Every structure is written in C-alpha cells, then in structure tokens.
C-alpha cells in the first residue's frame, strides 16, 4: 500500500521534472529572451550585460536548476505585459478555468456514466442506438464550432444564456467564484457543455464497453444464478467493477480538459488561464507560456496521483499489491 504511493509519488516527481525541462527549454529557446527584451539593434555589450543579468551565461544545467528552484517558489518572473508576476497572474486566472473544467467534467462524468450504463443494459433498444449515434456528432465537430453554434442559438436567437465571460463573480479571498451568483452559473452553462461534450462521449462509450464486459463475467452470471434482482446485479455488482477503469480515464481527461479549455475560453472570452496562454502566445509572453505549461503538467500529474490513490481505496486487490504495474 505505502510502497505503491511511494512509487507513484516518485514517478510523479520524475514526470514533473521532465515537464519542467520542456517548459524551461521553451522559456530559453522559443524566441531568445534577449532578442525579446532588447531590440535587434542592441549592441554586443548590451546583450552581454543582459545575459549576465538573466544568468543566461551560466551552464545550461545550472540555469535549469535555477528555473526549477524558482518554479518551486512559484516564481516565474514577470509577465512581459500586465506588469504582474506570472504566478499572481495565473493564480488570478486559475479559478475561472478550474471552475469551468470542474463543471464540464461533472457534466461529462454524470451524464456520461448514466447514458453509458443505460446503453449497456439496454444494448439493443432503439434509444441506446440513437444515443450512441448522436453522441458521435459531439466528437465529429470541432469544439469552437460547437461553441459558436451554441452562442448563436442560446445567446443570440433565444437570448436565454449569456454569450461570453463569467458574469458576476464573488471574491473568496483570492479565489473569485462564479458559482455563487445566478449570472455566474448561467454563464457557466454554455462553456461547460462546449468543453464537456467531447469527454462526455468518451466516458459514455467507455462506461458502456466496460459495463458490457463486466456483465459478461462469470461472477455476474453467478449472482444472477443466485437469483439477485437485475437492480442488484447491475448496480451493486457490475457498476463498481465498471467504474474502476472509467475513473482512471475520466481522471486523465480532467487533466486534458484544462488544456483543451484554451479553445472554449477563446470562443467564450472566458477569463481563464487558457485565454491567458493564447494571448501570451500572441504577445510572445514567454514567462507566462512556460509557467502555463508547468501548470498543466502539474495539474495532470496531481490528478494522475489522485486517481491512483482512488484505485487503492476502491480496489482491494491493488491494496494488497495484487495487480501492480497497470498499463
């Protein structure tokens, strides 16, 4: 038990270091910071001075460790625009993205599992076939188009829901939440759907196939033979076993949701880190770019870790080191 956690932790650290390396390289080599800070016409002395100042003349590995070290202190330097320290900038934008990601994940997981289970149990009913086909449309159109169409329908034509932004937000310390105001919640609906649709389809199909597989297992047939009601069979025996793999994927998805939020946030002018990243790309705001990468990497690793720990809680076999090294 402990050993697994240890193992996962060490792995996570390794991953994080590599992610840090990548974002460091970007920081260092995508558009040389010196050229960014000084104009082309800068003199050699100026360049040298600046390199000195930025510590760019040190051996590369030292620079890397400096980078990691300051990253550990949430110090990513200053954004080239907006004056703020990057950490501050990101932490001010993070709530928006996290709330969006959370809501769309919730939407995707709940609906996904329900429909998935339904289509598995009633696998031959017309409705499930219908759901299955429809759900594919969700993954057959680019997110931004879905977003724009939703805006067009619900904001412009029907005027039911806001077309952009977070609406009224409430400050809880540094965390600004849109979950506590009506307009905030209303503004969440369209982006969450846009962002969650893809994951929804994914989770639904996964749940379905896993459920079908589990329903095929001997132990399910056995409890049937023992005369347990369908309800018991499906929900007390089949479902838990189904959910294990679903949780992993869903968890991993959550990580990528944050990254995929980039598109949704651009479409809905959602003031989150995704929008921040896009603009930092447009403005070649490298500190923000690399910090964002670290953030996404970090989030992903953490989520990964949580999923693994969830495993331990749910599955007794893993608790007793039965199946280690799952793919």
């Amino acid at each position, binding site marked *: 038990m402990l050993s697994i956690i240890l193992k996962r932790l060490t792995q996570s650290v390794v991953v994080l270091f590599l992610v840090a390396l990548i974002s460091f390289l970007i920081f260092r080599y995508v558009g040389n910071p010196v050229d960014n800070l000084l104009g082309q016409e800068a003199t050699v002395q100026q360049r040298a001075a600046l390199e000195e100042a930025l510590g760019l003349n040190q051996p590369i590995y030292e620079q890397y460790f400096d980078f990691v070290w300051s990253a550990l202190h949430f110090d990513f330097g200053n954004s080239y625009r907006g004056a703020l320290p990057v950490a501050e900038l990101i932490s001010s934008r993070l709530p928006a993205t996290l709330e969006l990601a959370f809501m769309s994940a919730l939407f995707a997981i709940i609906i996904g599992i329900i429909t998935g289970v339904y289509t598995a149990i009633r696998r031959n009913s017309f409705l499930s076939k219908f759901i299955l086909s429809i759900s594919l449309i969700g993954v057959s159109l680019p997110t931004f188009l879905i977003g724009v169409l939703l805006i067009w329908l619900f904001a412009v034509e029907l005027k039911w829901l806001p077309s952009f932004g977070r609406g009224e937000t409430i400050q809880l310390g540094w965390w600004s939440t849109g979950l506590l105001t009506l307009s905030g919640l209303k503004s969440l609906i369209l982006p969450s759907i846009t962002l969650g649709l893809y994951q929804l389809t994914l989770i639904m199909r996964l749940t379905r196939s896993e459920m079908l597989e589990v329903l095929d297992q001997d132990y399910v047939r056995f409890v049937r033979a023992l005369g347990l009601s369908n309800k018991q069979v499906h929900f007390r025996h089949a479902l838990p076993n189904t959910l294990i793999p679903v949780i992993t994927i869903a968890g991993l998805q959550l990580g990528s949701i944050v990254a995929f939020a980039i598109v949704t946030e651009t479409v809905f002018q959602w003031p989150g880190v995704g929008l921040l990243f896009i603009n930092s790309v447009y403005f070649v705001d490298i500190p923000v770019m690399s910090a964002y990468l670290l953030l996404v990497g970090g989030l992903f690793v953490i989520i990964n870790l949580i999923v693994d720990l969830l495993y331990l809680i749910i599955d*007794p076999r893993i608790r007793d080191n039965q199946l280690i090294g799952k793919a």
Partner: protein
Amino acid sequence: MKQPLLNLNNISVTFKTRRQDFKAVEDLSLTLKEGEILGLVGESGAGKSITGAAILGLIPSSGNLSSGEISFKGQRIDKDPKIVRGSKISMIFQDPLVSLNPLRRIGDQLIETIQTHSPCSRTEAYDRAIKSLEEVGIDQNRFNAYPHTFSGGMRQRVVIALALAPQPAIIVADEPTTSLDVSNQAQILSLLKKLCKEKRTSVILITHDMGVISQTTDRVAVLYSGKLVEIGITQAVLKNPRHAYTQSLVRSTPRIERGSPKQPIHQIPDSKSKLCPDSKVLIAEDLTREFDLSPTWFYHKFNVHKQRRVLAVDSVSFSINKGETYGLVGDSGSGKSTIAKMAVGLLRPSSGQITVNGENLNSSTISHRQSQRIRRRIQMVFQSPYASLNPRWKIGSILAEPIRVFGLSSTKEEEQNRVFELLDQVGLSKSDVEKYPHEFSGGQRQRISIARALASKPEIIICDEPTSALDVSVQAQVLTLLKELQREFSLTYLFITHDLAVVSTMANKIGVLNQGRLIEEQSSELLFSKPQHEHTKMLLDSAPKLDIA
C-alpha cells in the same frame, strides 16, 4: 409415482450464428428426482453446459430456448426462471477465480444473497452466513475477507456456500472442479456430495470426466452433440454402455491400474525394448529455479519493500534414457512446467543445470551455432492447442519455419515435401498447408504442433500437458500418435502432466513433484502398485477413478 423435482421436456436451445442457426441442445428430456445427483457427461460442445444454463434461464443472449418446457415441481419455469433462481435452483460455475465479485467481501455477498431470498434482519442473515461458511469448512474470521485472499479450492468452497445459502432444492454444478488440482477436486466433490445428501438437495453435475461421474453421481446422462444418447444408473451405464459413443467414451478414458502391473490401453509392446540403460540423453542435476515476485523493476532498484521470492524448482535431479518416456506429475505450481522451460532453454536455472547429450543449453559461454545444434535436438509440444499456433500464419509456414531456421532443406520444394511428409506423419492431409489454425479442431491443432516439434528431426520431445485441454476420445488418439511416433523415430519423451491416469498409460518412469521438490521417482508399475511418499498416495487416492466393480 410422485412427480419429479425437475422435468426437462423436449427442450431445444438454438443459437444464432453468422451464417445459420445451430441447435446446441436438441429435443432433450430429463427428469431429476429429489436428493439425487445426476451427472451430465459429454465432450466439449455436447451442450451439457447450455442445458445447465437453460434450467436457470441463463442462456447467453445470442441463444434462446427454442422449444420444449422446463418445470419445477410441475410448475413451468422456462417462461420466468427468475422465480426459482437461487431460491429453488442455484448454480456453481467452473472457475472459482472469476466466480466471485472481486470488490465485495465474501460476507457481504453471503448476507446479500440470504436477504434477497428470505427477508430477515442483518444479524439473522449474519448468523446464517457464518453457519454456511462453517459448513464448507471456512473459518468464520475470514468472513470479511476479499475473494482474492482465498486459494482456488477455498474460493470454490465459498461459491458452494453462496449457492447453498438460500437453501435451494437443486444445484446445477457446471464443471465445478475442472480448474482445480486433483487433491482439491476430491475434497470439493466429497464436500458437495456430503452437503447435498444432508440437505436432500438434488445436484446436476456437469462434467467431461468419467472418473468424476463414476465416483459422484447416482445417475448419468450422456450427451453427444446436443442430443441425449444414454441415461441410466451410473454403475450400469459404465459397466455395459449401450450406445456406441458411451462405449468409446468409457474405453478411451485412461485408468490407473493399481496392484497388478497390467499393460495400460494402447501400450505399444516393444516401445521399451529399445532402452539402453547407460545412454542418458537428458540429465538434470540439482536443478533449481527461484522466482522474484516483487512487482516491478522499481523494487529491485530501490528495494522499497521486501522482495517476494519463491522456489519454483528446488534442487531437482533426474535423468532420461534414450527412447524412454519419463513422466513428471504434480499439482499446478509444483514446478513441472518450469522444468520443461529450463530443459528447452526458455528459462535459465538459478543453480544446477540440465544437459542434453552432455551439452548445456543454458551455459553462458555457448555460441549461437552450438545452441542451435542443441535446440534442433530437443523440441516441445505445448498444452494449449489454441495458443501454441500463431493464428495469423498458415500451417505451411508454421511447419516450414523450423526447417528453414535449422537449415534442414536446401531447396524450396525439398522444404515443401518435408512439410507434406510431416503432415502425413501426424495424419493430416497435404491440402492443409494453405489453411489457418482456426480452421482446425483442438485435436488436429495438437497434431500440427506435434508436427512442428518433429520438423527439426529432434531426439527429445518435451510434452507439457499435451492432452489436458482435449476431450478424452481425442486425448486417446493423440497419445496413441505420440507412442507411434516414439517407436518410429525412437524419440525420448519428457511427459509432463497432472493426470496420473494419462501418465500411467505413457511413461516407463515417473517422477512426482510437489512444491518444486522431486519427492518420489519410480518405474510406473512400482509407483502405482506401492507408492512410497504420502503425497503420492494422496494423489493416487484422490484421482477420480473409473471403477467398474
């Protein structure tokens, strides 16, 4: 007379397959009396399991009960089998390892089952659960344990406890012991028998093993390709089977003859005459193999927690003379297969060595040419007729590969002819070279893998459970084939099996393995007449015997 407990009246089960429907069970009629144990015997595909499933209405979704009716105490149940499931009729499946929900404590599963059928307080259910666990001989302090913490035999006990918990009138046991070791098998069968006699519970015992039938059942029904060919009192049927199929079934079942060293069936008389005692072709000297079960390389590197090591093979020594068949018997996990792997160089011994004509395949100094020379001499026939042939390869290329690798043919047609020759030797036709494995039956596939083993003209062939996955009739044919080949090419066999009966018909000399140790080595006559070691005796006793008194 009073009406039977269960009555199957002309039932047929039809499955939809791609091209056409096929009847897995056809116009089958059976009756089950109260408290009796009825055996359903037949080979794979005979429809015995389907019949069992049909009784509880658990036929896989692609099939259905196309005609006939099933009634329990005169009441139709085939329309709505739910009313009897568990409460009146319960079922036991073949593989205990997958019959229990891995995420639920066995106690919960018991209580759930009990409460489903007899509404009672949890404490009440708890007491009954404890009781039923005790009945099957499981300590009540395991009540909250998860299934994966039990051994196969113990799990099957739990399964039985679960099946009996609602006190059903009938239990359908589908191959309940096939996946267990002989020792466990005997215990489970007697336990099942005992409990059912106590509780006056009738049993439908589905099995392919005539031994099990003869030892456990009161009556036996013989199925052949979905039809009932014979039914009657077990002893009577076994003594003078009327139907031709039953006769072949009884005949081809290998038996262990204790006492008088009589020639087992199909024994080729002169197969032992060629023995020349001093020419030892395969020699194992304190062969030892240790396995490290600690999960991943990560642990080796950082020793996060104690490494789990097991001795699979513990200083085993034996030798095989040219032309002889040496049988290795033992339960699963006794190390038989590990020895086989080391013999052909698929595994390296942790210590000790195994040599072929004095050459050690596992020695680190050996060159590729040398090792190839040894490999050519020693080949292997595997257990699974399905996994041992690459499904994507045509038979032709499967057989040609060793010929090419060992450079045994200079030209294409030479190779081609050799392949035909091999096919002919194992009784297959030339035309089969163009076919793929899935187009053959289990027996034929085993023939193919024998042909593959022969391709390099080896001197030694290691047979690892070559027939354990086959039906008895087929098994007999394959065994006979092996014998004929042995005589024809004066082959040496290392014959590995868990089935004492089979080994008794094959081997001249037998070694008994238990937990990696070679506990007894005897000529087959002696071993079966006067076994020395306790474990050997136990094995002999618990092996299901087809005794026709």
